[in-house]
């Protein structure tokens, strides 16, 4: 708890710097990532982030120490080479895009690991810092390095904001963009540069292995919540920053902990949460609405059974009779019954159930919808009378009053359904 307060009150200027850096980095990579996510180029980001490792090692070998300028340049060049190679291969061979990306990723990363092992054997005392590039260590970043990474992040954010209209067109409809004379190839080139830069800025804080997660996961999680590009960018940035800061905090409390994996853990939590609870598209709301529908269905069926008994001059039904009609839904029917009793749609006397006045009116509505739909299917879609019942069983729970009015009008307020049974209406509507 003390650590928590110490960290989040920013008493330590170096923590303030790191958090500021992580914030910029998070926004920058989430922005770029959102576009590549929408462009369905998520894997390319993964390939690039693995492919920068050889460049990092060469940069280190050339400088002989962890100089951010050498390392960033090396990482950028090797990422650029990987990007160029993948588009060249796609253009000039018959290989599919996924195999090209998988090959580039593993080949570059393999070479990177070889370089890293060679460097480790060289006995250079500075080498310990190089290991943090694999999984990242945000707390270990020196202030001078932060300026480089933060500056690059800021550049990414600025360029993306400036070119928002152009990138939107590049992703949504590049052919149209080209047709109206936009240099789509050039815009794509700028975008690729930004993408490589977004990977490069994350290598020290997040690490090459997991950087792709920071590019793509925020956008994927945010997509559950919104259909607007501006909101999508904002949410992706927010998710990314939250996870980035939390990951950094863990690295601060437990100094041996690498930042990258923890950032990914928090990102995954946010993504999982979005997947579960986001309104409309989330798993939970969808399950709930499904359950509401099933409940409504059982309730309607019970009401219908009571109404049909009433039509046959039987004012009451015993519980046994009701259960006999729906033998597999005993507990559901009981639950519906309790609810209907509470709401005053039905009344219970000993073991027999009857509809109240309010109940009759509502049950009549359900039966009416059922029979109207049957008639509609029969008259307009020419479906035989013995085939219309199943569909009406589904539709009677869904039809809105507006649709009911449309059906009535279209069918010219009919009196009989296809089975020659009366379509019931309230006395004043008849």
């Amino acid at each position: 708890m003390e650590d928590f307060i110490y960290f989040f009150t920013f008493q330590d200027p170096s923590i303030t710097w790191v958090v500021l850096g992580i914030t910029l980095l998070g926004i920058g990579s989430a922005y770029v990532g959102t576009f590549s996510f929408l462009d369905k180029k998520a894997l390319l980001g993964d390939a690039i982030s693995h492919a920068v490792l050889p460049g990092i090692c060469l940069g280190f070998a050339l400088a002989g120490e962890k100089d951010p300028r050498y390392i960033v340049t090396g990482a950028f060049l090797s990422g650029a080479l990987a990007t160029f190679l993948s588009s060249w291969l796609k253009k000039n061979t018959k290989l599919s895009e996924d195999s090209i990306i998988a090959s580039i990723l593993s080949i570059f990363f393999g070479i990177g690991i070889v370089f890293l092992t060679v460097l480790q054997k060289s006995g250079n005392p500075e080498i310990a810092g190089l290991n943090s590039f694999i999984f990242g260590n945000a707390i270990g970043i020196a202030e001078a390095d932060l300026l480089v990474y933060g500056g690059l992040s800021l550049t990414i954010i600025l360029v993306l904001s400036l070119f928002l209209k152009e990138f939107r067109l590049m992703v949504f409809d590049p052919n149209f963009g080209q047709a109206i004379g936009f240099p789509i190839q050039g815009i794509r080139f700028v975008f690729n540069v930004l993408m490589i830069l977004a990977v490069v800025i994350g290598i020290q804080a997040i690490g090459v292995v997991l950087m792709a997660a920071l590019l793509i996961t925020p956008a994927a999680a945010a997509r559950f919540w919104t259909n607007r590009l501006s909101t999508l960018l904002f949410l992706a940035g927010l998710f990314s920053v939250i996870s980035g800061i939390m990951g950094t905090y863990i690295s601060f409390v437990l100094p041996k902990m690498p930042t990258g994996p923890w950032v990914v853990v928090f990102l995954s939590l946010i993504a999982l949460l979005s997947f579960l609870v986001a309104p409309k598209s989330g798993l939970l709301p969808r399950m709930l609405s499904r359950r509401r529908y099933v409940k409504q269905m059982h309730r309607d069926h019970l009401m219908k059974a009571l109404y049909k008994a009433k039509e046959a001059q039987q004012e009451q039904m015993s519980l046994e009779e009701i259960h006999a009609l729906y033998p597999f839904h005993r507990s559901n029917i009981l639950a519906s019954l309790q609810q209907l009793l509470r709401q005053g749609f039905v009344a219970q006397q000993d073991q027999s159930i009857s509809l109240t006045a309010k109940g009759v009116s509502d049950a009549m509505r359900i039966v009416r919808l059922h029979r109207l739909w049957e008639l509609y299917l029969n008259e307009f879609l020419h479906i035989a009378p013995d085939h219309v019942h199943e569909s009406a069983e589904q539709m009677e729970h869904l039809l809105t009053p507006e649709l009911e009015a449309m059906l009535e009008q279209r069918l010219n307020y009919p009196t009989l359904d296809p089975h020659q049974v009366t379509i019931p209406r309230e006395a004043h509507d008849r």
Partner: protein
Amino acid sequence: MITHVSQPVLEVHDLTVSYEQHPVLWNVDLSLPAGKLIGILGPNGAGKSTLIKSIMGLITPTSGYVKIFDKALPEVRSRISYVPQRESVDWNFPASVLDVVVMGTYGKLGLFRRPGKKEIQVAQNALEQVGMTPFASRQIAELSGGQQQRVFIARALAQQADLYLMDEPFAGVDMATETAIFQLLQDMAAAGKTVLVVHHDIHSAMNFFDWVIMLNLHLVASGPKEQVVTEELLRKTYGGKLNLLTQVTDLIRKQDFNPLKR
């Protein structure tokens, strides 16, 4: 049966187009008059979309050239409007109907400048013309196929061009919408605009177009509808693949290079 016109809006000169190794359009040579509603007809794989894309500069031809308003494409680009096939984009992209239609004004805006009040007004007018005003703030993913098609046409209208090139704007559109859109296109032609439409249905083509281009890997016909839509030419266009041309194409495909490329 190829009718040439003097002072054409669009001149396609001896155009041959190849995809990678094999030619898909052979020596197309035609010229089109202004202020007409023009249909491009032909069977699947006849090269209809390829012709439009080559005119729009999206595909580099193997040989030949295109002149629009007697100039090269880059000089007159702002006067041309293009409607790609509906399936060519991902309609799950997070954008509203208005967002997409505003893209029609991007060409005049150029790079960097953002659309403002004026551009939104232009887009709203375009939406009104295609009867989509109530859908302006709707997400494009929620639209039906016909509505998506109308959004694309509205975007083309927002370009305020003189020549319109439309790739299958009636694919997946119901009859009522088709008639309404054709009415709109006829009004545009009457106002002096030239509208070029890739089209499938020969029946509605007979009713609506002034001028018809028939393609089947090569140019079969180009001229006023009354002169061109004859049984003989229709048979030439739709009556199966041209055996010899297809075999030559296959032969070229088997080579490692395209002999037509210079």
